[in-house]
Structures are given as structure tokens and as C-alpha cells.
């Protein structure tokens, strides 16, 4: 039996089919993954994402610590309440995890890391925090709900007093603020507008139920996966890992090489890779023929070489199959994918495939 979030009994009562994810028993879907996916694109869905790790950091040198720890530059967090996406790298430039970091009040920061990487991350973070005198506290007392979709913010704000509601609704994308015992962030993993709410675990089931009563559709990890794929967002363990660097994972935009004086972990390796040039890249694929692209299928770029699908599936919004694939750097135009022994044609595209309910490729 895996670890359970504070909402496990509620998921069970709602008829969830559960699945192991990073050592956690999590809802895969509550009946129809496609219906849940469409609810997020059209109205609102609510996800239990309490399996993700919330890690609070504090200390006089916490900023210097994060400037060393992360490939993106926390100096961009110019005020409390700002959020930044980035990678934590090993010395070889391989990705240990991708994460969000929020600047809290004073010298405090909060990181949200992947469920399956919590233990690895914490060991790495603690190993480097000591020399900076930074405290590292895993917030296992918190649960996290993601409320996503065009109606998600309004539904969430209804759960707050009028003064607090206007505070939440005033948040710009990638901004967050504490509201009572909630921490509300205008972030997500679906390509839609919405909030991620961190709150005391004991209060999470009530909020989940209230949002459900107001019309938010309970959504499982199945819909979360197809939504993030359409939105062009990587999944750790599929699309990148410790053996791949950010440049070959379509995450070069999250690496702050300037200022050159910031010697973050992995920088030396990335400088060499940058000088030499990457040999592979992560691209989007849109299947031209009928079928379904899946992880690990072989991609053939005629005259260029071969690659592999890292994430694939069926896009409910586009009504066809889409994928991410790691391919030789010169790959462009049309490729072939070996789908169960058949060579199907796919077009190389730049994700996202879908944003705010609208198809961006055709």
C-alpha cells in the first residue's frame, strides 16, 4: 500500500479508481478521464495534488543558497508573492527535479517539488543548505488542491470572505499570497487559468467538497497528464531525468546563464554543453495518421536519425494523438513513428498544443 493524502477516503467515496504514483495511492479518474479533461478546458476541475512536496526554506542567506541550488535565478523574485519555475541540477547538468519556488515574507521561500522526487530532493537540498545556514522544513501538515479551468478562480473565490476574495482575484499569473490559513497561488499544470491552494490538511476535504458542490469536477491524474501534455508541460521521469539536461528537454528558457558570476550547481557542465551544442532536442509530435502515440515508441527522422517518444497519448481537445519526443537536433518537418509495428506519419510541432481551451496547432 502506498502513501495516502488527507483526501484518500473522500476519493474512495467518490468512486475514484486509484493508481500508484511516486509511491502514493492517487485517483486516476472518477469515471471518465476524458470528461474530466474537458471540464477543465471548458468550466472547472479540482485535483488533489497533496502528494507533491512543499518545502519551506529560511535563513539570512536563503537567497544566496537558492542562487546556488537552482538553474533559474531567484533574483527574478523581486517581491514576496512572486513564483518562478526552474530546475535543480546535479554537477553534470542532469535534472534532479523541476519545481516551483515562491518568495514568502522576509528571507523565507517555499518550493513545491514532485511527489516521486521528494526524498531525493530533500537529501540534496539538506546536503547543500547546511553551509548556508538555511533551515529546511518539509510541510507535511499541508494539503494542496489545484482548481483549474476558466471558471476555477471565481469558484475558489466564492469560498472566501469578500475582502479575501478580491485579494485572491487580484493575483496576477505566477503570483501568490497568504489568505488566512491558505496560501493561494495563480499557478497550475493544465494550460488553463486557476489556483493552487495550499492549506492545513485537516481542512482540505471540506474545500474539495465545497468546490465540487459549486460545480468543479473532481479530476484524477489521468486528466492531469493529458492536460499537461496538451499544454506542452514536461513530466519529470518521462520527459527529463538525471541523465538529461535542460537544453535537450525544451527547458533552456528556465536556465539563467546571466549573470555569469552566479555559479549555480550544474553551470560548469551546461557551459560546456552550450559551447559544444546539443545533439538532441525535445519536440512536440502531432500524429497525421490514425492511432495513438505512446511513451518509448521509436521515432524515425528520414536522413537524420532516430529518437524516442517520452510522453504520448490522445488529446481530447484536438481529437488526435500528440506526443513529446527526444530526437536528433536537425529533426524537422515530418517523421515516422513505429506504432506497434506500423510506421505512422507525425508532424514536428512546437508545444503547447492547446492553451486556454484553444487549439494552437492543426
Amino acid at each position, binding site marked *: 500500500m502506498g502513501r495516502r493524502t488527507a483526501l484518500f477516503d473522500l476519493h474512495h467515496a467518490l468512486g475514484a479508481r486509484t493508481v500508484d504514483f511516486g509511491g502514493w495511492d492517487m485517483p*486516476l479518474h472518477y469515471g*471518465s*478521464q*476524458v470528461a474530466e479533461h474537458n471540464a477543465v478546458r471548458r468550466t472547472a476541475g479540482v485535483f488533489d495534488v497533496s502528494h507533491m512536496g512543499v518545502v519551506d526554506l529560511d535563513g539570512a542567506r536563503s537567497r544566496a543558497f537558492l542562487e546556488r541550488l537552482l538553474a533559474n535565478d531567484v533574483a527574478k523574485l523581486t517581491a514576496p508573492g512572486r513564483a518562478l519555475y526552474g530546475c535543480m541540477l546535479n554537477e553534470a547538468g542532469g535534472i534532479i527535479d523541476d519545481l516551483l519556488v515562491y518568495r514568502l515574507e522576509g528571507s523565507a521561500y517555499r518550493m513545491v517539488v514532485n511527489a516521486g522526487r521528494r526524498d531525493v530532493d530533500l537529501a540534496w537540498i539538506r546536503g547543500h543548505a547546511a553551509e548556508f545556514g538555511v533551515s529546511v522544513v518539509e510541510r507535511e501538515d499541508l494539503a494542496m488542491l489545484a482548481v483549474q479551468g476558466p471558471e476555477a478562480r471565481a469558484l475558489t473565490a466564492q469560498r472566501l470572505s469578500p475582502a479575501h476574495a478580491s485579494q485572491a482575484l487580484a493575483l496576477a499569473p505566477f503570483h501568490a499570497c497568504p489568505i488566512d490559513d491558505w496560501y493561494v497561488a495563480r499557478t497550475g499544470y493544465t494550460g488553463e487559468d486557476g489556483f493552487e491552494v495550499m492549506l492545513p490538511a485537516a481542512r482540505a476535504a471540506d474545500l474539495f467538497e465545497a468546490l465540487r458542490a459549486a460545480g468543479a469536477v473532481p479530476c484524477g491524474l*489521468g486528466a492531469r497528464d*493529458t492536460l499537461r501534455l496538451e499544454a506542452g508541460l514536461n513530466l519529470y521521469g518521462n520527459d527529463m531525468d538525471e541523465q538529461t539536461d535542460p537544453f535537450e528537454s525544451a527547458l533552456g528558457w528556465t536556465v539563467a546563464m546571466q549573470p555569469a558570476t552566479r555559479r549555480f550547481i550544474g553551470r560548469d557542465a551546461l557551459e560546456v554543453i552550450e559551447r559544444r551544442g546539443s545533439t538532441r532536442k525535445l519536440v512536440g509530435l502531432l500524429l497525421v495518421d490514425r*492511432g*495513438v502515440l*505512446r511513451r518509448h515508441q521509436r521515432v524515425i527522422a528520414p536522413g537524420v536519425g532516430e529518437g524516442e517518444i517520452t510522453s504520448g497519448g*490522445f488529446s481530447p481537445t484536438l481529437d488526435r494523438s500528440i506526443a513529446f519526443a527526444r530526437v536528433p537536433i536537425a529533426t524537422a518537418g515530418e517523421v515516422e513513428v513505429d506504432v506497434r509495428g506500423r510506421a505512422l506519419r507525425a508532424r514536428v510541432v512546437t508545444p503547447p498544443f492547446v492553451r486556454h481551451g484553444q487549439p494552437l496547432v492543426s
Partner: protein
Amino acid sequence: MSNVPAELEYTEAHEWIRRLPDGTAEVGITDHAQHALGDIVYVELPEVGRAVNAGEACAVVESVKSASDVYSPVSGEVIARNGALETTPEAINQDPYGAGWMMRVRLAPGGGEPKTLSAAAYTELLSRESD
């Protein structure tokens, strides 16, 4: 609880067979199978005219989760396939024993009786699997 119509025959691989008086049989996957697969998004059916043997993989059903082979429960020649599944594969989720039928086979003469389960035996199998 899965729907298991009494008038059909079943296989351990969760296909159903509807024998028709003209010596043909309709084939599909069971309610239990569609439920386990989740939302079905793509179906690959055998060509009309293809000879199939009992136990041979002859179709593919892909759900949001995974791809699964469908094994022909009978031997014979495929005489029809449900082309509507190309555009509405979800019919298998919604109506596995009706609009979700997959193919019709003219049973091979003297091909022997295929090994199938009665509705009661299949229900028994499902209850054992859920233990």
C-alpha cells in the same frame, strides 16, 4: 457490478460472442473490459475477408491508458466490421454489447466448437478476479 447478458457467450480474455442463426457470430469486448480500459479513443479492426483463428490477435483497442489486443474467440472469415467505431470509439464504453460490436465472422465449417464460457461461468470468473 458488470453487465453480463445471459444470451451471449464469453472468453477468459473478456470478449463476447453473439451466435446468429445464419452461422455467423458477432464479437466485441465485455462491459468489464471496457470499464477496466477506461475511455476508449481508438480502435483498429481486421479487414473484411480476413481469415481469423480462435485465439489470434485480430483487433486493437486503445484507451486513454493503454493499447490492448483483442483476440478472436472464434475461427472463420471476417464478413463485416463496425466502421462507426473509427469516429465513435466511445460506443464501446457506452454500449459494449450493442453499438460497440467490433466484427462479424462466418464460422469456419468443421472448425470445432470454440472454447467459450456461459454467462454464468463468465460472471463466476469476474467474481474470482475481483477477489
